């Protein structure tokens, strides 16, 4: 069989890196970096997931067809997140400064049945 047997040393190296990154992300969580800390923690999680996919899940050594399926899955996830995040950003970020367009009323920030940000949820009606 032509499959690739990943050497134990590679597994242990990836394991050590994963542990280091776990320590790093926990450390970052407790220091004040403002909005940057979310970006760093997300980047660390993406790096960790990529290491697991490439080496533990053998994708690094897999056929092109496997690469295609894996990247399609990730691309679909990215599409979902990016479009929904874009929608959230245009609804939630008010434009500053004077503008010819009147700033939207507070109701514009509510999404469908969701309450406006900062206002408590209404109790369910029965």
């Amino acid at each position, binding site marked *: *069989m*032509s*499959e690739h*047997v*990943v050497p*134990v040393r590679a*597994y*242990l190296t*990836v*394991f050590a890196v*994963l*542990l280091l990154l*776990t320590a790093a*992300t*926990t450390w*970052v*969580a*407790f*220091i*004040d*970096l403002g909005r940057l*800390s*979310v970006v760093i*923690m*997300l980047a*660390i*999680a993406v790096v*960790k*997931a990529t290491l*697991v*996919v490439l*080496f*533990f*899940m*053998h994708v690094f050594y*897999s*056929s092109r*067809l*496997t690469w295609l*399926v*894996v990247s*399609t*899955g*990730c691309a*679909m*996830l990215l599409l*979902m*997140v990016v479009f*929904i*995040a874009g929608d*959230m950003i245009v609804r*939630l970020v008010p434009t500053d400064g004077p503008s010819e367009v009147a700033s939207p009323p507070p109701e514009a920030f509510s*999404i469908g049945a*969701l309450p406006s*940000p*900062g206002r*408590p*949820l209404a109790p369910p009606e029965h």
Partner: protein
Amino acid sequence: MAELAHPVAHHFDDAEQQHEAGQLGMWVFLVTEILFFGGMFTAYVVYRSLYPDAFAHASHHLDVRLGTINTVVLISSSVTMALAVHAAQTGSRRGTLVWLILTALLGTTFLGIKSYEYAHKFHEGLVPGPHFTYPGPDAPQAQLFFGLYFAMTGVHALHMVIGLGILAWLMRETRRGRFGPAYHTPVELTGLYWHFVDIVWIFLFPFLYLIGRH
């Protein structure tokens, strides 16, 4: 050879093609899993961006220490699973069995710590529903946070329980000498599943426990 011969199904040219097809099928399933969990993560991101302060406040009720320990436990179980696959590939039946047992033990440890956390939340009244008790004015949003917390970690834990069941089956089949260098597809595919569940936790940990912590 100690291992039993594994037949090649008639619609495959050879064992290698059959092996490739198995891998591909598993990855297609995992892609549906990526999007399944992705939907929940997206819901979480939407509500988190709507109520950032309430969510940051609510996440302080989670125990970072236990979350970090569980992350290390799960990553370790991923390594032992990878080593089980390695042992099966290199024809070590005993090695396969030992690594599978270690993987199951680490998985059980994870679930044990998780259930301890759940029990704690029940005692504190942080489970969404009629008995939800939360100090502070942003209780409704916090209830939303804990709803997402229980849904996401609960579905993740369910995946772990299913994984443990498959591991038990693999141990039995390994003892019977079904796997070896020529045929070990079930060990490999279970490995893929187990690593995927690990990846989900790699994202759950910072999202639920860490963001907004300092």
